């Protein structure tokens, strides 16, 4: 878990106005950009390898059966194997590199009265959600995430394109606290 030590989680951030007003946990709504938990890279890699690997294995096995049963001349087998490798190497590389790239470009920022998410490797997107527009929140945890104590926070609004905004790869405890934070406090009834 030393990966996690390096990451600046909101817990370590300085106190701010949120603390002064005393409406929210001061350490969470610090108004600073934070990366999600670095372990999410590992989880994403494992998850995508779990998909890619069986496909690759099945193809490889069929290819080998074709060769072993004599249906295929060795040069042909080697040729196909080479092409297969050439096609699959980038896929493997991508499943390895992409989660890290995605992680690098994923930032969230908790405000006293809202949440901002910034994401996207090539196509960048920043989404701002005021708490007053949050309808309900989900904190989900898949089996792999449970193993690494991660969780996915989903914020539901009454919007259309932004009806469900997910933040993947938070430490589960932070996701839960964030979910608590994003609930409308009765005091926000200013209208």
């Amino acid at each position, binding site marked *: 878990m030393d990966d996690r030590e390096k990451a600046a989680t909101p817990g370590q951030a300085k106190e701010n106005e949120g603390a002064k007003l005393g409406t929210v946990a001061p350490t969470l709504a610090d108004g600073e950009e934070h990366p999600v938990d670095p372990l999410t890279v590992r989880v994403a890699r494992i998850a995508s390898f779990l998909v890619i690997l069986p496909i690759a294995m099945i193809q490889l096995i069929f290819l080998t059966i074709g060769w072993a049963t004599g249906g295929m001349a060795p040069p042909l087998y080697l040729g196909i194997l080479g092409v297969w490798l050439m096609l699959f190497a980038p896929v493997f590389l991508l499943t390895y590199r992409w989660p890290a790239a995605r992680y690098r470009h994923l930032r969230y920022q908790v405000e006293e009265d809202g949440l901002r998410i910034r994401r996207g490797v090539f196509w*960048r997107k920043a*989404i701002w*959600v005021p708490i007053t527009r949050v309808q*309900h929140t989900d904190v*989900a945890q898949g089996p792999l995430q449970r193993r690494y104590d991660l969780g996915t926070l989903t914020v539901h609004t009454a919007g259309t394109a932004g009806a469900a905004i997910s933040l993947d790869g938070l430490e589960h405890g932070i996701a839960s606290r964030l979910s608590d934070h994003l609930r409308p406090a009765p005091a926000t009834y200013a209208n």
Partner: protein
Amino acid sequence: MRTEARRLHRWSWPFLAAGTIRALIVPVVGAVVASRGVLLSRLDLLSVLFVVPALVLAFMRQRVYNYRFTDSGLVVRNGLLTKNVRHIAYERIHNVALVRNPIHRMLGVTTARIETAAGGKPEALLRVLSLEAAEDLRRYTLSEASEAAALDSSGPAEAEAPEAGTQEPETARAETTTETAPLLQVPDRDLLRLGLISNRGLLVVAAALGVGAQMRWLEFARTPRTIVVQDWLNDQGWRGLYESIRTRAPDWASWVFESGGLIRALFLVLAALLLLLVVLRVFSMAWHLVRYRGFTLHQNNQGLRAEYGLWPAVSSLIPVHRIQLVTVSASLLHRWFGRASIDLETAGATDTKSGIGGAAGTASTRQWLAPIIETNRAHALVREVLPEVDIDGVEWMPIEARAVRRIATRTAIALMPITVAIAALFTFSPIPLSGWHALWLPSVVLSMAWLVARQWVRRTGYALTESVILFRSGWIGLQISAVRFVNAQTFSMSQSPFDRRKRMASIVVDTAGAGGSGHRIRIPYLDVEVAEGILRRLYNETRGTEFRW
């Protein structure tokens, strides 16, 4: 108010399984049909394959499903592999719909559906609870804070379906409506103009063709008259038709048939096209007359009421507080007639259909505020309906002028293959106008692309007032959309790789029920700094307001 976790009723699993099985019925029936009934004789196999796993799954789901009431909201936990914890604040809960069918009644249980304003699926479907538990649920969730919301949610278009057993007592609204003079009355003349403007003629033709095809399929088309026409065409052919038109043509038109060769052919083709166009437009006018005859807009204490149409005759209530977006559009043809069209996007919780699994999502509708209206009155009408939206009074801000180059380049690149192909065709073919001088085409396309892009960028812009954001766009037409901050949900800023290279960004304001196509607040080609500023401003303005249906 913090309770221990509560489970579902112990007889929940058959109901949970029923949901799964219902979802599986279509594929199973498909499989049976595909097997030509062979599978039907193996019903035992089918049940082992589908029913037993569904039951086991349902039992396990019942075991993990629980809910509890905390100080701020309802917390629902579920999920076998992926565990999910859902927090629903009491303030956000509009309604707790209890749905019971005869089986529920027999077992003394009910399905409870928690509804908030969020789009999509029901926020929580508690399947099933004992009646006492359901009452508890309603007591906890629909107490203090939510009362206001519950009152507010009882929109006019929503009467609980009769089969819903115990219901939220609808706040009985007395039908004391004080009608005043109509805000708008569309005369027939304007509807004819609208028919000219909007191309609904094809719709009529398509409908006619569809009906025609249907008729022929039903062998109704073999009526004596069509047989006569068909036989005559078979005998005489198109040449015969042409001859008969020629002999019947009046004297002043006879020259068309006398002059020979290419000109005549061209003229005839043009005439035919023109005729088609006229016919389509006439159809379109007729369609609009039938559809929108006597369009009247009234304002009363409930909201707006629009009445229109010969067939079907429509009387629709537009709840003003549910208007999410308003758009004023004026195409080129609109502008020639000095007219504009105004449409609205409304959204509301549609909890009317209460089938057990029935989605209680939000229905969005785009409807006319005014199908056609004089341009100078359009903005006033919008202001009358939504006082905050004062289109004439705002200060429009431009988008980046640098965008012209990007748009023109993109258009030119997209059009280049076809331009080159046409230029090549001109250059190397024996038809008239050919020769190397056909190379003028690409340059014309390029400059046209530039001009169009420049015009579009000039006219596109946005405006921010104290409570509204407006966006306008168009190059020969113009569309203006406005969203009140109260109705804005989330804000996003996007940057494509091209945007990033040019330090630009686009902004989207998301609203409820923004389904389908249509003009909305989607401001492209802003400078990044400007976009950030707008986003901050929108966020600051919105965070203090409460969104209500």
